[in-house]
């Protein structure tokens, strides 16, 4: 194979006019991705974006790679078939919180548990954008929308908890206000062997504007985003004055001055047991409290497509390549002359 050609953002941008609402967080995610792709040293023709339906799901149209805009919720299933058939490809899956956690929730958890080589980006705006503003499975209790005039009564999903519950091997969170952080998360997810999921807090400025302001605005970040860094004590705050401790299996926010640095939890992405990562994911169940971002989990487990290919290879080793003539004679036969 010849060397991967050098590309630029322009090479990765399709000729289609981008049609999100002006100011939508999806724009900054798209830019981050188009800028990142040349750095990943991959070929455009070997890259496929598959999406379902929703505002987020328009994403593939704007990337100059192969792409399929499929149907609501089913992109993980379609991508699974593609990745099984074509392990040589880089398959990305993009969708919203409704697409991936409501109608497609089942496909998402199964793709994650199988550990098939997909890089899944879940744009979480806590609302149904494309259908004009109903509450979503990540909307907070009490949310007033067109379909919940008296407030939503549904307990929301925490996408990170769901992914960890499904024993995903790579789980991360980022947000649309920080290009560098997004790119870092996307890069790591892409490089991971197996199913990788990145939740992206994404602002829908039309139907749920400012949902993440309290945590992602520049001046709020230090105090409100808990950056998870592998091998480092979990600390946040303008002067690192707060931290996270695991007490009886539960993550707790503590004042460092009070407890000392030594008892802070040292983040371990590679912990085989997802329980601690899960407890960290439970730290914030609103978007007003300090919220962890970064890589929650990154562990190695056999990739599904590899197992598929190796079973085929093993079958060919023991039985030889398929012989149709022999197959038709594999049940008792008799001759008539």
């Amino acid at each position, binding site marked *: 194979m010849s060397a991967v050609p050098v590309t630029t953002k322009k090479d990765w941008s*399709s*000729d*289609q006019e981008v049609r999100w609402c002006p100011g939508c967080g999806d724009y900054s995610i798209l830019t981050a991705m188009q800028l990142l792709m040349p750095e990943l040293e991959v*070929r*455009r*023709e*070997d*890259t*496929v974006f*598959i999406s379902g*339906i929703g505002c987020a799901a328009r994403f*593939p*149209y704007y*990337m*100059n*790679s*192969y*792409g*399929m*805009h*499929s*149907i609501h919720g*089913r992109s*993980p*299933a*379609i*991508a*699974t*078939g*593609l*990745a*099984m*058939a*074509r392990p040589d*490809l880089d398959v990305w899956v993009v969708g919203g919180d409704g697409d991936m956690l409501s109608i497609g929730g*089942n*496909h998402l958890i*199964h793709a994650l548990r199988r550990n098939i080589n997909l890089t899944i980006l879940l744009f979480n705006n806590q609302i149904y954008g494309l259908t004009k503003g109903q509450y979503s499975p990540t909307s907070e209790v009490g949310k007033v929308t067109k379909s919940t005039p008296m407030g939503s009564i549904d307990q929301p999903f925490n996408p990170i908890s769901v992914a960890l519950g499904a024993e995903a091997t790579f789980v991360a969170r980022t947000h649309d206000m920080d290009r560098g952080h997004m790119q870092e998360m996307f890069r790591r997810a892409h490089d991971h062997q197996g199913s990788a999921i990145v939740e992206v807090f994404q602002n829908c400025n039309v139907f749920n504007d400012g949902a993440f302001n309290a945590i992602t605005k520049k001046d709020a970040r230090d105090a409100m985003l808990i950056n998870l860094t592998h091998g480092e004590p979990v600390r946040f705050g303008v002067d690192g004055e707060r931290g996270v401790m695991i007490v009886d299996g539960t993550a707790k926010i503590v004042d460092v001055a009070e407890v000392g640095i030594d008892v802070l939890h040292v983040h371990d992405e590679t912990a085989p047991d997802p329980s601690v990562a899960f407890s960290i994911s439970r730290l914030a169940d609103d978007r007003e409290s300090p919220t962890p971002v970064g890589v929650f989990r990154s562990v190695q487990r056999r990739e599904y497509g590899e197992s*598929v290919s190796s079973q*085929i290879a*093993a*079958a*060919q080793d023991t*039985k*030889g*390549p*398929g012989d*149709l*003539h022999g*197959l*038709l*004679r*594999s*049940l*008792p*036969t*008799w*001759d*008539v*002359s």
Partner: protein
Amino acid sequence: MIAWWVPLSAARRVRFQKTVYLREGTHVTDIVDRTEGVREVERIIIRFAGDSGDGMQLTGDRFTSASALFGNDLATLPEFPAEIRAPAGTLAGVSAFQVHISDHDITTPGDAPNVLVAMNPAALKADLHTLESGGTVIVNSDAFEERNLAKAGYEHNPLEDNTLDGYTVITAPMTSLTKEACKDLGVKTRDAERSKNFFALGLVSWLYSRPEEPTMLWIQEKFKGRDLVIAANEAAYRAGNAFGETAELSASRMTVRPAQLPAGTYTNINGNTALSWGLIAASQQAGLPLFLGSYPITPASDILHELSKHKNFGVRTFQAEDEIAAIGSALGASYGGHIGITTTSGPGIALKGETLGLAVSLELPLVVIDIQRGGPSTGLPTKTEAADLMMAMYGRHGEAPMPIVAASSPSDCFDAAIEAVRIALEYRTPVMLLSDGYLANGTEPWKLPDIGSLPSIDIEFASELNGVDSEGREVYWPYVRNDNLARPWAIPGTEALMHRIGGIEKQDGTGNISYDPANHEFMVHLREERILKIADKLPPLEVMGDDDADILVVGWGSTWGAITSAVGRLRRGGTKVASVHLRHLYPFAPNLGELLQRYDHVVVPEMNLGQLTKLLRAEFLVDAKAISKVSGQPFTAAELVTKIQEVAQ
């Protein structure tokens, strides 16, 4: 799995000192002629019935295999209860296997059985009504004790009252004789009891002069390493044989001579296996790997099982989390250049509907296989019906035309599968392939095709730019069309042909999103036109039967066997009748309309309430009449003879 072949020399009426070879050629034994002096009949229909735990499917299957190797033509109808372990001894737990063996070409498992083997009272109660009047009943008398009689709802023992008056009754204490036969073998009594189906098989094989060697070989191969089981089954079989000899049943003995079948190598095959092999053959013919996405459902699961065994052909099988993921994964694989297949039954097709719409819009190859069963809902999961035709035809949102191919016999599932794949690949479209529970599990001898004669499927992926944009640059347009009105198939990984496809309406040619009203109108018509165009290259339908007939019987799917047999009988009886069988239900073969106009009467036997009939009436304005049956059972030829005669009058 053992495999053997029996070389039957020149004449078909051979003496059966024939050699049975294990395929490896390691084991040689003789098939001994046991038919000396035995009355010959043209055909026999035997129905084995018992509790689910009695092993009647296996008994029927063994009897069938021995008959196949003996050279008979045959057809089978296995019937399973819906519950895996219905309470023992109840009517709900009765499992039956009907086999029709013949010395001439036959196409159905027969009308009324001549012989009923009933292993318990429930089996007798459930199936006695199917037996021909004056037929033979063979019962395991040990099972006719109070508890079993009560469970079957008999107030009196039918072996002792007049229930069986008019039938020839052979009672054998099968359980106790089996135990007796096994007593010195060191087999536990309970285990010995389990071998009683081999007693039944031994007895029936003696009565109908079946060779014992195939069964003995099978027992040894199947239970290899379990010597006690082998010994018990063999002893039970021989005890059944001996019972026939000693109980002076010679008067009931008969045999069916081998049939005059065209020369070739044969195997006895069921529809699901033939269909699986057809998919593999199609993949070889097209030179593309097969991908099956499936979710288990009766009676389709066996295709998933079968294809999963053949990974050495490069087949990828995926047991998905549901039917939606199953078809989604298949479509994803097709997008990647594999032959995407998904298999299910009616309820699963309902779930796949939305993805079918996407596949129609994406114009990618995909084969969707519906092994129909009794519906709606869970309906009769283990019984047959063919009531999904309208769903196959119209069961989608929007105008979403899809070709429909139907299989007509167990072995025909092989050819139908190849045809469905061919259309899907050559026309870049999802295709619906219809089979049903009867074809799926029923068997018939199949003359193995010469692999060189299989249809070729020539497919090329797109590799070049094919358009010029407004700025004069060469580009790739995904919806440019060829003579078949099929779009190019550019698979990911192909340099320079990056493009996006999706379910939103697109402009023909460029494939760009288009909400333009005139474009949508154009595309809706084009999608229909391109499917109708498939008919241009279909062979014309061939009519069987009388040129000057007044009645045309139009069939589709598994009714082929019963129609063929019924029309044959009617013609031999002097009725002028013809028949035609439809492989393609959408689009129809090009000469169908003209054919229908030629006859005064058009009748359509269907295992539904007249779905094809409605399509024919709508499409061709003919007064077609349905002969419908929705009992979960296939048509018998006798039923059709009567119904068709009614039309003739």
